[in-house]
């Protein structure tokens, strides 16, 4: 990719030009930084570490499940493995991933600001994240929890003999990291846009981050209070969730899912924002249906708070409650469908190139479509009765979280890596690993849809032998997937030392972040830019047949 260098000193290699990476040295300059870009990198390192922890748990689980009677560990240990896998992946990887890394790095840059509204609060968010992660990891290595990431009562409050309180405390603490990040983003986006950057000129990634931040601040406090109540119950045995003394175990589920359902939209909305950026950049076109895509993010954020009961269809709740939550769950699917169609339409008459970020984006669209449509199965009351608690649910959410969110995260990392580090990575290897991930992913999770309809329940350490073939297929796929994730780790690290220098805009993309050097200076912009054009304002042919 030739960089269209029209500004001075951009041919000079990154090391000799002052940028946010070399502006100051030493561990204190990193641990006490208030620069949003450095904070993004602090998060990148910690989140990658947590991803590996969760990934190791998953690897052990899939290895264990190649035998019906379990190949690796005893059921107690297996239960702890799937619990820590879920807790780490949900709270310490997926929820913060794009917002805390790409969001922190890009939100100020994309809107033409020098930093977020509250940089010190931003640093505090990271420390809070680390503290929570430390509690959880400590608990994990000293025995872990066996409650699942869902902590259902009364098992977790009265029966489990595991480190429920330390882990709940870790998650509780980390929740405040999310809340502060969300708060920071909302204020930044509202108040610090550059002159001319009206709401409807914002990149769609910003709309997605804004919608996500609303869920952050309104949803996260509820899981905090829920875990607090759980901890109190476990300590004092009052009976808030214990039916023997008049408590209601389902109250926990309502409180838990009131956050945890919007949480899954926290996990996917930023990814959708990334995809809007990638599709436009790699087809060199304006997004199709900008306002529809922007408003659909907001619609998803709002409706996401109204559907939590679809996790509780078989708990014995009233039929009417089921009907209400079912219809709302169908409703929340529509804005996502709108996005998929708009992204596809953006490709029409585009000028499409296939570097790694685009492969991830295209993979996202396909896999997210499948994952989202399988959500309809679960929103359908009569079918959910059969599928709830089975591997079908596991496959559904992994299609969205791994086939969707993680692929978007990878695509975003690949897209903005040159901006963040000033280096290019080898695209051939990147494209190869994207393909490996795509294949490995489908091999791992597609058989789980079949397993689920056949009736194999989830969270099973041992299973009836007739499910073995599908389990072995899934585990084989998981080993491929694992390889696919390791390769980028290698070349990304390699690129930081040996990658060729990236110019300010190796992809020829539109966006304020691409109008700065790579890596950018600490203050982002010498002069705050004045925005005069729409987002994604690529030069295009007039609407005439292109042939």
């Amino acid at each position, binding site marked *: 990719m030739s960089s269209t260098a029209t500004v001075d000193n951009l041919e000079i290699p990154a090391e000799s030009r002052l940028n946010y990476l070399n502006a100051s040295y030493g561990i204190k300059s990193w641990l006490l930084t208030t620069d949003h870009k450095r904070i993004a990198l602090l998060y990148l390192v910690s989140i990658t570490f947590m991803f590996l922890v969760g990934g190791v748990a998953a690897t052990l689980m899939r290895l264990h499940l190649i035998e019906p009677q379990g190949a690796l560990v005893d059921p107690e240990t297996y239960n702890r493995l799937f619990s820590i896998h879920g807790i780490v992946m949900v709270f310490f990887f997926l929820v913060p991933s794009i917002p805390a890394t790409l969001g922190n790095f890009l939100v100020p840059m994309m809107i033409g600001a020098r930093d977020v509204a509250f940089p010190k609060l931003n640093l505090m968010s990271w420390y809070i994240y680390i503290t929570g992660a430390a509690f959880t990891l400590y608990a994990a290595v000293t025995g872990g929890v066996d409650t699942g990431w869902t902590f259902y009562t009364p098992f977790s409050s009265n029966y489990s003999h595991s480190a429920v309180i330390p882990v709940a405390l870790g998650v509780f603490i980390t929740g405040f990291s999310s809340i502060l990040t969300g708060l920071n983003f909302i*204020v*930044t986006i509202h*108040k610090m846009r550059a*002159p001319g950057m009206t709401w409807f000129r914002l990149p769609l990634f910003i709309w997605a981050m804004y919608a996500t931040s609303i869920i952050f*601040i309104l949803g996260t406090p509820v899981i905090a209070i*829920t875990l607090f109540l759980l901890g109190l119950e476990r300590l004092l045995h009052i009976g808030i969730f214990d039916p023997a*003394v008049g408590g209601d175990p389902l*109250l926990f589920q309502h409180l838990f899912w009131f956050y945890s359902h919007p949480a899954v939209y926290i996990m996917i909305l930023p990814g959708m924002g990334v995809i809007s950026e990638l599709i436009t950049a790699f087809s060199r076109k304006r997004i199709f249906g900008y306002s529809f895509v922007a408003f659909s993010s907001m619609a998803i954020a709002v409706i996401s708070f109204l559907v939590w009961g679809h996790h509780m269809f078989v708990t014995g709740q009233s039929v009417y409650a089921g009907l209400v939550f079912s219809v709302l769950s169908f409703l929340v699917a529509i804005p996502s469908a709108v996005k998929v169609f708009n992204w596809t339409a953006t490709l029409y008459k585009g000028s499409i190139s296939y570097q790694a970020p685009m492969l991830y984006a295209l993979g996202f669209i396909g896999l997210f479509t499948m994952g989202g449509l399988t959500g309809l199965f679960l929103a359908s009351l009569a079918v959910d009765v059969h599928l709830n608690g089975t591997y079908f649910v596991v496959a559904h959410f992994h299609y969205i979280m791994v086939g969707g969110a993680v692929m978007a995260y990878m695509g975003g990392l690949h897209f903005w890596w040159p901006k963040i580090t000033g280096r290019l990575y080898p695209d051939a290897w990147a494209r190869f690993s994207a393909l490996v991930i795509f294949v490995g992913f489908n091999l791992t999770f597609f058989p789980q849809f079949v397993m689920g309809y056949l009736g194999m329940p989830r969270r099973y350490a041992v299973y009836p032998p007739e499910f073995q073939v599908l389990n072995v297929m899934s585990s084989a796929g998981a080993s491929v997937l694992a390889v696919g994730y390791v390769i980028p780790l290698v070349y990304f690290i390699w690129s930081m030392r040996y990658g060729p220098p990236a110019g300010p805009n190796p992809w020829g993309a539109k966006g304020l972040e691409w109008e700065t050097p790579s890596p950018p200076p600490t203050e982002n912009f010498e002069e705050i830019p004045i925005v005069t054009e729409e987002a994604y304002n690529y030069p295009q042919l007039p609407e005439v047949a292109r042939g």
Partner: protein
Amino acid sequence: MTVHAVHGEHPPGFAHQFEDMEQQREAGNLGMWLFLATEVMFFGGLFMSYIVYRTKYPGAFADGSRLLNVKFGAVNTAVLIASSLTMAMAIHSAQTGKKKPQVWYLILTMILGALFLFLKFNFEWRADYHEHLIPGFGFYVRPEWGGGGAHVQMFFLFYFFMTGLHALHMIVGIGILTVLTVMAARGRFYEQYYAPLESSGLYWHFVDIIWIFLFPLLYLAGGRYPIPGVTH
């Protein structure tokens, strides 16, 4: 928008990620409102759980509520409302450029806040402890509660958790006020710049409002005085 080149244009306390003080003030204000929204959701979860159980066990919750000291609760309500007034006066003093009243009003707010905590901890909670009404600390199920003893205990759990969480927020508020008082004494707030006072005022008023919900929900659930003509 101008590019700010001369540093001296901005007063002390200006944070350089902003373009000007106006933007900083607006950002601070919006940030505080958003934070208060998160607090509403945080307390909200507790309120919802309380409402669920109160609806399920109205008798037991009424029994528990009757054992609370309504007089102290009412006095404390007045104390908090007064403290919100003094807080507003402190901000008004800053807006009108008066330094001494600022400091005095802030100190008065802190005193009222401390009075609230003193009345609560020293009179209400101490008595509750001696009467064995604190769950987990020697709670005693009284025979007159009949079969609902466990539910009365649940009432008290909510009472102590909700008022305790509120008290924690008050303590944090007093801490913030201490810092603000020192800053005010040093003349940091005046007509053009009093954003920290404003934000903290919002926080303080919010903590007050939480109490205004807590008081009737917790203290007045029992119906203490017979209403003529109604037998229950």
